[in-house]
C-alpha cells in the first residue's frame, strides 16, 4: 500500500472535529490551547489562519469559552 496515512483513524477512535473560525477567534483558541497543560492540549493541526483540526469532546468547552469572552465585552443597562 502506498503511503497515504489516515491520521484521523490513527490518532483517535472517535471522530475529530474541524473548526472554521475567523482570524481573531483562531488566535483566541490557539492561545487557549497553549495555556493548557500538555495532556489536555486539543489542537491536532493548525491548518491555516481560519481552520483548525482538533480533538473531539472539546466543542462544548470552546463554545462556553467563546460565550464568556463575548459576555465580557457586553454591557446591559440594568432595568
Amino acid at each position, binding site marked *: *500500500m*502506498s*503511503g*497515504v*496515512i*489516515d*491520521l*484521523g*483513524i490513527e490518532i483517535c477512535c472517535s*471522530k*475529530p*472535529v*474541524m*473548526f*472554521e*473560525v*475567523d482570524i481573531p*477567534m483562531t488566535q483566541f483558541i490557539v492561545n487557549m490551547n497553549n495555556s493548557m497543560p500538555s495532556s489536555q492540549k486539543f489542537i*491536532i*493541526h493548525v*491548518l*491555516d489562519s481560519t*481552520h483548525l*483540526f482538533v480533538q*473531539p469532546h472539546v*466543542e462544548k468547552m*470552546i*463554545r462556553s469559552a*467563546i460565550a464568556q469572552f*463575548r459576555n465580557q465585552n*457586553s454591557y*446591559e*443597562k440594568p*432595568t
Partner: protein
Amino acid sequence: MPQVKIIAKNFMDMVASLTAIKLDKLYNNVFICEAILRSLPPLAKKYVLQLLFTDAPVTAKMMKEWVLPDGESKHGVAIDRLIQLRIFNESVDRKKETCYSLNPTFQKNLQKHIISGGVLPREPMNSNNAIKLPSLQELETYALHQWECFLLQLINSGQGEKLTGISSSMMKVFQRGLLSQRDRDGPRLTESGFQFLLMDTNAQLWYIIREYISNAEERDVDPADLISFLLELSFHVTGEAYNLNTLTDVQRTTLKDLADLGLVKLQQGRKDSWFIPTKLATNLSVSLADSSVRKEGYVMMETNFRMYAYSTSKLQCEILRLFARIEYQLPNLIACAITKESLYNAFDNGITSDQIITFLQQNSHPRCADRVPSIPENVTDQIRLWESDLKRIEMTQAHFYDEFPSKDVFEAACDFARQWGGLLWEDSKRMRLVVKSEVHNQMREYLHTQSK
C-alpha cells in the same frame, strides 16, 4: 444550530393529496372549482381557461409551443400542478403522443359557473331588516378579539384561564407542532412555535385550519366535506346573516368551532339562529392566491433602537416581548427597546434575524412604511451582526489526510471528495486534505482502490 422552518402549510397541497374519488366529489361544488382556480400559478390558470371549452385532448407538444424558451420551467411547474390536482388528465392518443384534457367534472362545473355566475346554496336573511346586524367595524373587532384570545390561549395554555370555548383536546391538536410538553415547568413554545407567532395572520389561519382538517378523520368527519364547506364559506358576503337551518349537522358543529376562532359570529333571535361570516373567513380564498390583505401596521422603529408600538393588544405585546425589551406601556402605546440581550433571547429560542426583520417590515406603521427603508438600516444591520456574532465558530466532524504519494493522487482525491460534497479544506502546496466524516468511508475505499 439547525434552523427549522415552519412553512405555512399549503392548503392546496392537502387538497391535492386527497384520493381521486374524493377530489371528483369536491369538484362537483362550483365554488371549490373557483377557489382552486384562484390558487393556481398564473400559467396554469391560463391553460385551464384556454382548454375550458375544448372537448378534444390537446397534445403536450402543442402546449409546449405556447411558451417561449425561457418559460419552460414555469410551464413544467404549471403542468405538474394541474396533474397533481387532477385537473388535467393525461392520456395517449392514436399517434402515441401524450395529451392533456380537462377533468370532465371540473370542466362542466367551471363552464356553468362562468356562464351563469355562482349561486350560494343559501340566501342571506334579513331581507326585511328585522334583525339588527353588527356593523362591519364591530364585526372586525369581534373577529380580531376572538382570534387573539385563541392565540393567547394557544401559547399560554399553562395558565388555567379558559378564554375561548375550544375543547382542550382540540387545543392539544393545534399545539402539537408548536409547544413542547415539559413536565416541570409546563409547556413551552418550540422553535416552530416562535416562528408561527411571527407569521402574518393569514398564514397562521391556514396553518390552524390545516391542522383542524387533518384531525377531522379522528372525529369521524370527512375531510373532503370540511374542505368544501370551508371554501364555500369563503365565498359568502361579509356582514350578511345566513340562517343556520340551511346547514347540515356536521356543518353546524364545524361552525361552532369556527366561531371560537373568529371566522363567523353566531347570533340567535326569537325563532331562528344565524351566522355572520367575518373578514377572516372571506379572506380565506383570497389569501389562496398569495395576495393577502395586510392589516394596518403599528410599529415605529427608530434609529436609536427604540420601538413604539401603537397597540393595546395583549397578544401583540407578547409577540414583541419575544425579541424586544418592553420598557413601559401607555394606554395606547407600548414602548420597547431592541437590545443585545433581548435579541440573544430570541436567537436562543430559534428565531432568526430574517424573521424578526420581516416581522418589523410587515407590521410597520403606515407613516414608517412609506419611508424607504421602512426600518432604519443601522437597526437591520445590527440585528444581523448580533446574530452572526453567535455563529463565529463552525464545527464539523472531519478526517484529515496527509502524505499523498503524488500530486495526481491528491488531485483525484480532492475531486472525489468534491463530488460527494464532503471537501472541507485543502492545501495543494503541502498536499493535505480535510474531508467530512460522512464521506470518510467512501474516501478510504477510493484511496485503497487507487493505491492498487
